């Protein structure tokens, strides 16, 4: 698979490393060069320094057939704008926006934008742990 990841933060960098290790073709974009230090030494994918909100930085990558794009900067609104623009302008397999605000994530899902909400995932995990503790008590 060919994957584009926008935002090389704590989560984005690990995702990039994992997908790269698994043999996928990975392109990572971040506006800050320093962010790429989070990538593993073995990372063999492409690194682009640029602003994900500006189409010029995405076009060279997305012109080629890309299976999935993850918009995962630390700003919900940036991720949502990137995802919507990419969906409109490029024929991609899948576009996923990381949205920390749970309600916002749900709202955009209704609008047809695929979202992943870290807040919801953490809460789900914590509640599950609580359930396990309760059951073993």
């Amino acid at each position: 698979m060919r994957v584009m990841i926008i935002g090389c933060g704590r989560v984005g960098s690990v995702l990039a490393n994992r997908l790269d290790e698994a043999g996928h073709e990975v392109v990572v974009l971040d506006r800050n060069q320093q962010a790429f230090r989070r990538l593993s030494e073995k990372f063999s994918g492409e690194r682009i320094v640029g602003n994900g909100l500006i189409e010029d930085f995405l076009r060279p990558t997305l012109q080629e057939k890309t299976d999935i794009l993850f918009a995962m900067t630390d700003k919900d609104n940036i991720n949502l704008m990137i995802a919507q623009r990419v969906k409109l302008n490029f024929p991609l397999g899948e576009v996923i926006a990381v949205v920390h605000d749970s309600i916002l994530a749900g709202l955009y899902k209704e609008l047809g934008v695929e979202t992943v909400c870290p807040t919801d995932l953490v809460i789900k995990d914590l509640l599950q742990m609580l359930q396990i503790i309760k059951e073993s008590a």
Partner: protein
Amino acid sequence: MYIIVVGAGKVGYHLARLLMTQGHGHEVMVIEKDRAKVDLLSMEFHDAIMEGDGSTIEALKEAGANRADVVVATTGNDEDNLVICQIVKLMFLRPRTIARVNNPRNEELFTGLGVDASVSGTKLINAIIHEQVRAGDMMIPLLSLKAGDIEIVEVQLTRSSHIVRKKIKDLTLPTGSIFIAVIRGEEVIIPYGETEFQPEDKVLALVKRESEQALREML
């Protein structure tokens, strides 16, 4: 009307002030992120300004977005302005949203994603005030500043206008006047020396009161 303005920067501040003070009788709420700015402006706006990140559901809810007639997103970040308008439409089911577009290349995207009107600063002022002014006059005063000492005026050019087919650099503008925007169809052009006027252009100019007559004659 109840109007929420997100962002108390230059555009948001002046827009809110205009809506509150020029006898439109609108109820206005400004949402601003920067506490210092809120403190400063609350002397003037009193209860009509609140601190908060207006690009979030919570802040918009607190501001009463569910009963707003119009929400105007004027922040300096296009991604925030876009999401504000979409939240307002989807979550609060309000019909009218206006977004300031900082990067003109985002304008098409905004329209494609359901923002009712996306405008640059100049276009915004024009659009809001346009409804209030009488048409017909060749030079329409849009906005009066400094107690009427300065005005923003709009001129609809025709084939017979003196400046049509001329470049700005070849014109001698009356002292105390300057062209600030040329509206050509859907496009807004910030004019410079090489800009050439065409029939059907709408020209926005900033002019001192004493220079108005001279500008009128020149056009």
